[in-house]
């Protein structure tokens, strides 16, 4: 699928043309052209995704897995084809290793319930980190707080915003960690974590590893086999796909050993009043009517990014990151949070004397959408002494250097305005 544009050849990445694929990018906000720098919260959708969903609803919609009639067969085929598309996208061995959920949050909660409550043993620990999005922290806290004897440890983050691997090693050393659950890319700092190395360390200590790929899967080519992830999660709406769908990848043997999470239709083997047996994975974890049309949309999104080439997207974004790293720190009073070596297009910063909320309102009136707050990462903000929040600009495949320049200009103006 990478054939149209070879990975890394950013020169052929025609961002002006690509922007035309996204209807919303030609709208205006407060009379200004939209400068959308909040893709980290949720990305905009290309026409291909919107049209795939519309076409499904207009010509081949029915419930899946249940009907011996043409429409239902077509819907089932489309739904299962989306699973295969995700399998290939992640480099998973089999489509059965792909479970559709409603977002990353539910995917992580699924593991916290089924693996955390069903497989981990009292006396074991989950090891997460200070850098995490609440989605990869609160479910583990809830597990800890149920008094099942499952503890929780956090890997420290260093001042550059990188996971402290010595601390990771130290916290794995006693062999009591059953599961390491860390992000593959921070939604605040942009830090990309060394997933393969973390997996090796976890496995050497007898632990399984889950990566929260909500951000990473959007910006990098992910290969779950290469990094040897046991679980990997991402969410459709950040990958230029629909809301209402997320993905859990799990190694077949792990999924097979996990009890179900939610009960209902489509996840059963047989049901009597007394006793119910459960279907095999992935059906066992997909109770109820799944996000059918959303799967079709996600499939279209995956086709879209793989046709552009994840390598080309990464190269384009790397150029943007280099540009941002060159211009943003020159703005007077601006402090970037974190400075990891390996980072994606997410920049959280503070601007002296301007509250993030006021700044974001100011930028909005100039058409620039950025996020203010703590970005569902309160402990990380506390770690950097930024309880009051930061402003965050995050890039998508449609982001341009000109947009970053506009941001730079308006940040400088804002500082004057609020002086």
């Amino acid at each position, binding site marked *: 699928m990478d054939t149209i544009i070879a990975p890394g050849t950013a020169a052929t990445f025609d961002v002006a043309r690509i922007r035309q694929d996204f209807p919303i990018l030609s709208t205006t906000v407060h009379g200004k052209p939209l400068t959308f720098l909040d893709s980290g919260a949720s990305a905009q959708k290309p026409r291909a995704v919107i049209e795939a969903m519309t076409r499904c609803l207009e010509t081949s919609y029915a419930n899946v897995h249940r009907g011996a009639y*043409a429409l239902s067969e077509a819907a089932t085929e489309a739904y299962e084809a989306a699973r295969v598309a995700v399998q290939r996208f992640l480099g998973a061995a089999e489509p059965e290793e792909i479970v559709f959920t409603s977002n990353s949050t539910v995917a992580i909660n699924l593991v916290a319930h089924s693996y955390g409550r069903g497989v981990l043993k009292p006396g074991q620990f989950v090891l997460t980190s200070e850098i995490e999005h609440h989605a990869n922290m609160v479910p583990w806290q809830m597990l800890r707080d149920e008094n099942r004897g499952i503890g929780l440890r956090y890997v420290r983050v260093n001042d550059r915003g990188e996971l402290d691997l010595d601390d990771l090693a130290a916290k794995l050393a006693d062999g009591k960690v059953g599961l390491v659950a860390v992000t593959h890319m921070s939604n605040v700092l942009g830090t990309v974590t060394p997933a393969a190395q973390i997996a090796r360390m976890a496995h050497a200590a007898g632990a399984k590893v889950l990566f929260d790929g909500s951000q990473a899967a959007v910006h990098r080519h992910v290969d779950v086999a290469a990094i040897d992830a046991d679980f990997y999660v991402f969410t459709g709406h950040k990958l230029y796909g629909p809301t209402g769908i997320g993905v859990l990848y799990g190694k077949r043997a792990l999924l097979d050993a996990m009890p179900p999470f939610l009960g209902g239709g489509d996840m059963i*083997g047989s049901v009597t009043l007394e006793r119910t047996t459960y279907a095999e994975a992935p059906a066992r974890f997909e109770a109820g009517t799944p996000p059918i049309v959303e799967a079709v949309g996600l499939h279209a999104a995956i086709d879209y990014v793989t046709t552009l080439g994840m390598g080309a997207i990464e190269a384009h974004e790397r150029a943007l990151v280099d540009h941002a790293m060159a211009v943003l720190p020159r703005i007077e009073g601006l402090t970037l949070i974190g400075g990891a070596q390996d980072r994606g297009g997410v920049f959280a910063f503070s601007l002296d004397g301007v509250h993030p909320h006021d700044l974001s309102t100011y930028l909005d009136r100039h058409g620039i959408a950025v996020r203010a707050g703590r970005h569902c990462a309160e402990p990380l903000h506390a770690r950097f002494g930024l309880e009051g929040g930061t402003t965050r600009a995050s890039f998508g495949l449609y982001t341009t250097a000109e947009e970053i320049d506009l941001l730079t200009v308006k940040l400088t103006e804002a500082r004057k305005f609020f002086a």
Partner: protein
Amino acid sequence: MNEAASPSGAGDIADLYSRTLRELARDPAHQGRPASFDATARGDNPMCGDRVDIYVSLDGERIREARHVARGCEICQASASLLTALVPGMTRAETTDLGRRAAGIAKTGIGDDSNDGLRRLSVFAVVHKFPSRVKCVTLAWNALDAALAGVKETSSE
């Protein structure tokens, strides 16, 4: 997709429910639970309620006799019936291979007449036009495989 589906309409229906298939579905030859057997397993399709019990008697590594009790649609019954007719004399490796070929024929629509057994299984080639029915063909084969592997239950889902 509905538009892409065969335009021949109801014609296909008669193709699917061919005389051969319907005779197989009704064939009493290998039906019923035997008084004694060496291995058995049940195949269940939780979605539609189809269920096939397969019973086998062995002669060393080879199947001497196979019987079935099938509660299911005509395709399911026909598949169980043909299976029990074909497998006597075979080893597990051979039945696994044959089952895989039966599934292949049903999925792809490409028949095979390299031998008599495969030729007879080609009655299921038309099933590929009815994707949701492929598992009606495979249910009995999965059950046989489970029986020979010593597993008690299986499913075609």
